[in-house]
């Protein structure tokens, strides 16, 4: 009898404790959940709603237009699709260089070089420099009378100064160089973290089997860091496709809008504070955001599908 009553008391106590823990857990996640709804879900719903309107903030101009904004986007606004082309070109040029460079440097730093910590900090440093400052630095370096032209001329590589911002090809080159400089350090950190998880024993066994360095890299290192590399590549792809203020400060989309990426085009045309217009077509901008989000979602899903093998190499 006593035993039963003790058991009941214990069960009640446990239930009470469990309820307290549950309440605590809900209280703890309440704030981020509220933040998620207010700062993420609500703006998304807001964007979807206004994408169906002609909306510029002026009540008398506001009217429901259904899918008109989307139809215009697909049939009239070729600049947006050209901006998508520029974005893909930028990504194709930047990502291979950035990741290859990051991989080489990470492998070098992983081989216990002297002053490795210092080099890690140096390589990471560009990542914390503000985009506005990077814009100023590279505009000045690649300016007509800048250090790049002066150096190339002195080395005899070019005959006369190049106007780097005058053509799409050269302006895109500047964007790629500056962007790689800005972000490769972060990838060095990611890859270094992945490399530390590769067991030394495997390298030791391989060495005893007479495997050379290149074979070690392709048959041991690369397959073992592949699952992490899959994430690094995804982050790099999405980061590059969403490049925005970097383009605005460095080329301003020029010459003649030829280096606009889709995010920088969207910002420059429709985001109050960036656009010249006092009453930008926010409704149309919202429809562009919706399509951009969907397309980026498709890219992410397709990437995950095609890169599935990377997570199962070992």
């Amino acid at each position: 009898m006593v035993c039963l009553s003790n058991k009941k008391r214990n069960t009640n106590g446990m239930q009470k404790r469990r309820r307290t823990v549950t309440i605590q857990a809900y209280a703890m996640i309440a704030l981020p959940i509220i933040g998620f709804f207010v700062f993420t879900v609500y703006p998304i719903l807001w964007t979807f709603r206004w994408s169906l309107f002609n909306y510029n903030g002026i009540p008398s101009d506001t009217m429901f237009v259904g899918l008109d904004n989307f139809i215009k986007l697909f049939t009239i606004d070729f600049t947006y699709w050209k901006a998508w082309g520029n974005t893909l070109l930028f990504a194709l040029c930047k990502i291979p260089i950035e990741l290859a460079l990051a991989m080489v440097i990470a492998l070098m730093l992983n081989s216990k070089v002297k002053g490795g910590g210092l080099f890690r900090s140096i390589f990471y440093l560009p990542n914390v420099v503000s985009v506005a400052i990077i814009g100023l630095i590279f505009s000045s370096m690649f300016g007509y009378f800048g250090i790049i032209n002066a150096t190339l001329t002195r080395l005899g590589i070019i005959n006369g100064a190049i106007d780097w911002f005058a053509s799409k090809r050269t302006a895109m080159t500047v964007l790629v160089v500056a962007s790689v400089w800005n972000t490769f350090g972060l990838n060095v950190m990611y890859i270094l973290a992945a490399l530390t998880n590769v067991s030394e024993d495997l390298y030791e066994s391989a060495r005893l089997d007479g495997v050379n360095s290149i074979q070690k890299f392709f048959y041991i290192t690369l397959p073992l860091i592949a699952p992490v590399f899959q994430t690094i590549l995804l982050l790099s792809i999405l980061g590059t496709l969403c490049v925005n203020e970097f383009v605005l400060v460095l080329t301003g989309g020029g010459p003649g809008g030829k280096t606009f990426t889709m995010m920088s085009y969207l910002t420059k045309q429709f985001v109050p504070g960036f656009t010249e217009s006092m009453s930008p077509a926010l409704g149309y901008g919202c429809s562009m955001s919706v399509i951009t989000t969907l397309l980026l979602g498709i890219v992410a899903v397709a990437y995950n599908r095609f890169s599935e093998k990377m997570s199962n190499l070992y």
Partner: protein
Amino acid sequence: MKVNFKRTMCIITVLLLIVGVMSGCSKDKQTSTKNGVQTITVWSGHSHSKQFFEKAINDFNRNTGEKLGIYIDYQVKGESYVQMMELALQSGDAPDMFYSFNLQKLVENNHIVPIDDMPGGEEYLKKYAKYVVEGDNCFDGKTYVLPITSTIRGLVYNKDMFKEAGIVDENGEPLPPKTFEELRETAKKLTNSNKTKYGIILPLKWSGWFASDILQPMQSYAGFWQYSPVDEKYDFSSLVPVINSFLGIKEDKSFFPGAEGIENDAARAQFAAGNIGMKLAYSFDFAVLTNQFPATCDWGVAPLPVVDTDNCYKQLASYDKGIVINSKALETKDKELIMEVFKFFNSDELAVEAYKQGINLPLEWETIKDVELSDELKQWGEFAKLLEISAPYNRTPKQEASAKFDVQNEFLANVWSGEESTEAFVKRYEDQTNLATKQYYEAHPEEDIAEFNDKNWNIRR
């Protein structure tokens, strides 16, 4: 004990958080009346005139303000002024009066009140009848804001370089170009790339370049700005010779190289450094060339070039809007006192004083013609003199936003790069703009394009 301590700390933390959060929600019920003096808050986004206005307002508060029982609390909000104002209006924390922006939006959202409804408002507005324009200052016949200052255009030129190149009159004074063709020739003569001296600078990276150097001068050679009130359509045919002159400058290589990578600030800094012969500029550039980037050369201001000196029209002047009255201010503040503050900000005395100090230009030359300026304000006086040959631009009909022609990028991508002829580009620009206008008025049948037409429009010099 340990549990109690933890619990106490948790309660204190939660209370602190609640107090912190709630303090953000509190309504700032500032005492609007203190010792019989009403505080009227005014916000501005004009950093360049901050010191001038602070001094003028201090004088007002000490003299007129003390007599009338008004204290103006003037705050400059800087670059993010519009965003701050929009947030303040939505949260109900906007000041009693503020500098106007996006007037139609303010009117339609009932954020501001018409001056006509203020005490003595109708009488006061009579003086400004010729300046106020429906759609710009008024909506449905009610005036909400007055034009307060002017911004005008001119060609700034480096007198030292002109003298060095021998481009002078019989008295040895520099001779700035009068036509766009002369602009090209002068730029060529001034250019000496070995000495890194260039005839002109074209900040093509600046998104306002096409408007500044090609579209806005249009009024002085076409007689209207973009939309012809007489022919009742957008007409850009007069741009052809002007664009060709700029292409000629490119061909002659008589402009500062690397134009596509140059912003307007960098261009103004280069001009100030004394390596540039000419630049098309705004009257506010005077402050830039004296304070921000003090010019190291002797420079002057000339009228904008035209196409044909026998067919000159008044240059484009834009009137900058003054302060508006927050409708909520009328719930707590005395209407008469608010009107006194409104009159102070729009007074001729303040306009003359601002001119004397190189801050703002008034609406008309007549207001300041007898004012003598110090030597440091020589170029400011030259800009002001251009008020005599300037007139406000004609209003332009609205266009369907998604069909608007992105003129600067189209120009740089196609014409400046040599891929399209000027004539073809101008035709495309004109056709697309007229189409976008037609689309807008088809979608808004309640609006009438006829209000932009005027068969008697004539601003010949």
